[in-house]
């Protein structure tokens, strides 16, 4: 089974159809184990139990960027190699990535609340995530604004790649801006190096969320392929009627 075999939508559907139940089960299992490990991890001496939000926040933040990376690869697939499933991969990844980003924002806000006293502070990292969230939403809006799926795919692909180039620049700029304006520093989210006791639950949760992304993404791709088939059938029906 080569990569090119996967390019065939029908084979992709049958393969993922068989794979998906196992993926879903493994994801659920890993999430449960991760959550359990997070719960039994020791409290932080300074932050108490609230530090455990980190086990959800950090993996989500990582994934928000990772998904943009996946979309960038898919964008290259669309523009350079014209891979048939690249469009589908890119389109379905966007809402999932946006959701992870949103979760990162919410958990980040909740985590910061006890320390900051407010639900939002223009902390450098969270602000970068907020901008990333805006970019996801803009991308999703672009997907929906263009009728023809293949034209939408190409436009979105270009925007994704431009976004990928700009993300490090934006991150750098926001960090710089923050150090310029930040008064006497408050405890920063993500703090100093992590204690080993925290590392294991964190990695488990990161793995669990990655599997979650894979599961959701493959399921969404299946739906999108079926949706496109329906559209193709409807178009064929329309052109038959007028003949």
């Amino acid at each position, binding site marked *: 089974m080569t990569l090119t075999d996967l390019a065939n939508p029908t084979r992709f559907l049958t393969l993922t159809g068989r794979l998906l139940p196992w993926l879903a089960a493994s994801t659920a299992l890993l999430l449960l184990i991760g959550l359990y490990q997070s719960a039994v991890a020791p409290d932080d001496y300074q932050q108490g139990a609230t530090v455990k939000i980190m086990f959800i926040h950090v993996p989500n933040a990582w994934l928000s960027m990772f998904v943009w990376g996946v979309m960038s690869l898919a964008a290259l697939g669309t523009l350079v190699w014209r891979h048939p499933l690249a469009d589908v991969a890119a389109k379905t990844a966007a809402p999932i990535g946006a959701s992870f980003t949103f979760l990162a924002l919410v958990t980040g806000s909740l985590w910061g609340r006890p320390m900051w006293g407010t639900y939002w502070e223009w902390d450098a990292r969270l602000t970068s995530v907020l901008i990333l969230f805006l970019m996801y939403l803009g991308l999703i809006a672009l997907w929906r604004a263009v009728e023809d799926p293949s034209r939408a795919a190409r436009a979105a692909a270009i925007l994704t790649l431009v976004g990928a180039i700009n993300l490090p*620049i934006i991150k750098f*700029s926001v960090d710089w801006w923050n150090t310029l304006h930040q008064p006497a520093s408050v405890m920063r989210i993500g703090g100093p190096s992590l204690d080993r006791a925290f590392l294991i639950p964190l990695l488990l949760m990161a793995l669990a969320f990655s599997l979650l992304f894979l599961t959701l993404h493959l399921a969404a791709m299946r739906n999108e392929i079926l949706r496109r088939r329906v559209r193709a059938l409807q178009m064929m029906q329309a052109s038959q009627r007028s003949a």
Partner: protein
Amino acid sequence: MTALAALIRRDIQIALRVGGGALIGVLFFLTVVVLMPFAVGPDLALLTRLGPALLWLGALLASLLTLDRLFTADHEDGSLDLIVMSRTPLELACAAKALAHWLAAGLPLVIATPVLGLLLNLDATATSAVALTLLVGTPALTFTGMIGAALAVTLHRGGLLLAVLVLPLSIPLLIFGVAASQAAISGPLSFGAPFSILCALSLASFVIGPFAAAASLRHGLD
């Protein structure tokens, strides 16, 4: 006259003759800056402190709102087809159009800055600092925004979506433009550091913008 010079000349001619020309962008800039004190209060000290930021925001919005016709006008009347078929590389043609747009719409904003600086009670140093950062920054805003303008051709009705797509990309320009202005006014940071970064971002946009725009236009023609 060479092909690119002809294109720049044509675009500037059209910009100056149609719909109030360059002045409409300046008028919008003026309007936005005038709105700020109504929102913020007429406290002069506060306005002076916010001055560079308000001017930058006004210039950003004024640049953005004139961009969506950059390529759609040519697409609608069939000129874009001919531009793609010409012997001039599309990336250069896009860069030429962006340059023409800046000359007609962006440069007037820079020229209007001293007048608006008066309204916000900025002194000569402050105003020149802001004007200088805008001189370097407005071309970057145009060249960054042209990516959205090219995508707007595919959309057929760019408008707000264009703004939503382009604004996050413009954030670094805003950060360093305002920071450089503030540095010139009150220190402690030197003007040079953020200003050089602003210049670097501009130069990068002169390359990324035309390439991304040309790619979008080619794919959007079908």
